[in-house]
């Protein structure tokens, strides 16, 4: 009988390391929850507030649509310009950071710049730029440019490192200068992927540009934050609905662009 030969086999053997890990995590969970003073009482009193709050959100108030449109357009401008600037900086930086084309003394500094750009949340960068260059769209553009350089740089570096070196060698063998190697052997191999990254990053920037306004860096976020502070919740609802619609349109556009470039 087959069962006899495998009698010491269990269908689903228990994993003791996994169980201990779950236990440790459970203890941490309780500890952290008590640390943050998360009590059920607080939660339930909040739910009562929540019901009132949600009731005040509806119906959304689109009466001040001019203010809404102005903020949304500024958010769009910030997203577009930050993406454009981000590409302009990230593409050469990625070329410097690619280990298959550049020596170590060029790749390390370029990589360090990208890591620092990526480590700080756009809002932190935005607040620093607000302090440095004043309130308004410029701070938002600069902040999102920094974020774009971090992410685009990383993705582009990886794309460049994955190219086939045969074409690079072929172009080099003709005695072409470095700039021709880049434009005839590297760019054609990575171009459509770059377009994909840029549309993805524009999408991400659009999301973030609706938020940097909260710290005064331009866009719809500022309008949203002041509506919150004036307890103008039906206008808040209108703004959030508009943001959701805009971001959905952005997502659909990104998919269409990717389809055109066959990624």
């Amino acid at each position, binding site marked *: 009988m087959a069962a006899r030969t495998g009698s010491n086999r269990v269908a689903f053997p228990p994993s003791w390391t996994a169980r201990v890990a779950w236990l440790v995590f459970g203890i941490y969970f309780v500890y952290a929850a008590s640390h943050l003073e998360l009590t059920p009482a607080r939660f339930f009193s909040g739910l009562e507030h*929540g019901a009132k709050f949600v009731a005040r959100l509806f119906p959304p108030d689109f009466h001040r649509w001019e203010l809404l449109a102005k903020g949304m357009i500024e958010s769009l401008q910030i997203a577009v310009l930050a993406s454009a600037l981000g590409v302009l900086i990230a593409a050469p930086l990625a070329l410097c950071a690619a280990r298959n084309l550049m020596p170590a003394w060029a790749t390390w500094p370029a990589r360090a710049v990208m890591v620092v750009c990526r480590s700080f949340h756009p809002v932190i960068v935005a607040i620093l730029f607000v302090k440095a260059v004043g309130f308004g769209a410029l701070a938002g553009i600069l902040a999102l440019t920094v974020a774009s350089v971090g992410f685009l740089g990383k993705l582009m570096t990886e794309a460049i490192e994955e190219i086939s070196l045969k074409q690079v060698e072929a172009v080099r063998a003709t005695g072409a200068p470095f700039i021709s190697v880049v434009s005839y052997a590297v760019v054609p191999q990575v171009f459509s992927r770059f377009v994909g990254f840029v549309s993805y990053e524009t999408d991400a920037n659009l999301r973030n540009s609706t938020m940097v306004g*909260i710290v005064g860096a331009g866009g719809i976020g500022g309008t949203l934050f002041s509506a919150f502070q004036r307890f103008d919740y039906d206008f808040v609802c209108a703004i959030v609905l508009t943001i959701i619609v805009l971001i959905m349109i952005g997502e659909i556009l990104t998919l269409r662009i990717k389809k055109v470039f066959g990624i």
Partner: protein
Amino acid sequence: MTDVRAWERFSIGERMGRFAVYLGMVAAIVASLQTVEVIPEFISDAPEQIGDMLRRMWPVAWGFYPEGVHEPLLESLHIATLGTVLAVLMAVPVAFLAARNVTPFAWLNYGAKLILVSARSVNTLIWALFFVAVFGPGALAGMLAIAFHSIGFTGKLLGEALEEANRGSIEALEAAGAPWLAIAIKGYWPQVRPAFWGIVLFRWDINVRESAVLGFVGAGGVGMALDTALNLFQWERAAMILVAILVVVLVAEVATTQLRKRIL
């Protein structure tokens, strides 16, 4: 008769599509450049102002760490972890509803996807504003904000992982008459487990970054300390907090990559 045709990399349709995308991009950039409200003096002034800010940040107030940074930093990490756990708990049912092979009702799939897209479209900070309005300032609001925003991301990826699950073992369980819970735990779970941990770790890494800014809207964590330092123009302290955030983010990134290698 020999048919001579010139080789072309792209068809006319493809070229038109590409051209339309380029045109759209250039038009968007030009339109934005022309209409954006930026004061030119601010641009010319920017390098000087940024240099001035960096000079004020030096020397970094290292001594401030034990008294004013350590506690809020830990709070941020707790917010990120608990928020991720909560997000996963809420995302799993939605992911099951969104996966077409698990839930064979199209309207449920679309409903679940709508939830996921809306959760994702509203930024963490905007969620935080909502929850601060409901629960008052503090870590609870921050944790819920992280959780609700993360549902979108976690649920979408988890749903996609479920859709890629192999039919074979599920059919075997169904044939044996297993109830749906057994199918979920013994059929789907082992197949999506690597993807699941990958998604959770990735999201936790993102949430560590996000938890640092929740304090700007009063939702707890190290952002509150940073906000105070910046409002009081205590640039050396702000620099200390920024360094601490940088270190935590880098450690989190290294830790998640190592864990991912070991678990997967």
